[in-house]
């Protein structure tokens, strides 16, 4: 069951912004995709707060950083679509970002997993 807190987390732009590159690199490691297709895949993964207006510039940045490459593919339902795929530098970045993410979760999770005390303890004496 998705709670209100879950929904809020999935729409927090600051939280999502920090992991967007990792998510994009991970999805592109699985399959070559164009911009809107990536948005749909991100939403299906549960990150419904990620908007098109955030994803498209992020793809442009990843392409400038040479972590993804692109090619135009004709579409039967409209103009040619720009498909992105991971480069070797993108694979390296994905590995590094995944490691960093796991370390971050590993450090933060024990902190937030314990019950929150109702009354903070007084400061320790110097």
């Amino acid at each position, binding site marked *: 069951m998705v709670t209100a807190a879950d929904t809020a987390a999935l729409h927090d732009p600051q939280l999502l912004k920090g992991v967007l590159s990792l998510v994009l690199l991970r999805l592109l490691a699985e399959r070559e995709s*164009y*911009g*809107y*297709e990536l*948005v*749909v895949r991100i939403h299906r993964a549960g990150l419904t707060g990620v*908007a*098109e*207006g*955030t994803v*498209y*510039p*992020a793809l*442009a*940045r990843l392409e*400038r*950083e040479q972590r993804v490459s692109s090619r135009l593919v004709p*579409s039967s*339902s*409209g*103009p*040619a*679509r*720009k498909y992105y795929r991971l480069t070797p530098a993108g694979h390296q970045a994905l590995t590094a970002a995944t490691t960093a993410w796991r370390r971050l979760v590993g450090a933060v999770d024990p902190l937030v997993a314990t019950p929150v005390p109702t009354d903070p303890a007084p400061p320790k004496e110097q």
Partner: protein
Amino acid sequence: VIAMTGIADRIRLELLVQRLDYHLSDLPGARRRQVRREIRANTRAAAADVGLGQALANLGHPRVLAAGYLAAEGRPLPQYRKGVWWAVAALAAYVAAAVIFTTGFLDGAEAASDLDRPLTTSFLGAGVEANPGEASFAITFNVLALVVPAVVFLLASRAWRALPPVRRRLAARAGTAQ
């Protein structure tokens, strides 16, 4: 959901693309064309899923979307649009100052003499001719009238940002030397 088929939908999409393009004016032309093409293709695909209204709303404000693309360049860009506005303002100020000076000069010439012949002087490079007898004046602008706005354009637009960063050139030179 009905995919965009009508002319009205195409116009709505194109209006958004053009608004986005306006805010992307500091990007090189080829890059802007790429962004326009990609936004059109993605938004048409989104419209087939959720309708054009929602697809356009999901893009957010064109100015914010453009800011995302400009930030994605990862370097400070020349601000050509700002440069043009400042250059026009500088030219207008230069012409206005020349006209104000000349009318004052004409008033002075009329008050100081009853000459019929024209009096000439100059103002910041512009030739000024006052005809007290006819209560008229003429201003002849020279190349300075173009130089002033051009310099203002270069400074206001930060045109030097279009040059390759000095650090990159130095690094390339050091790499060649090794």
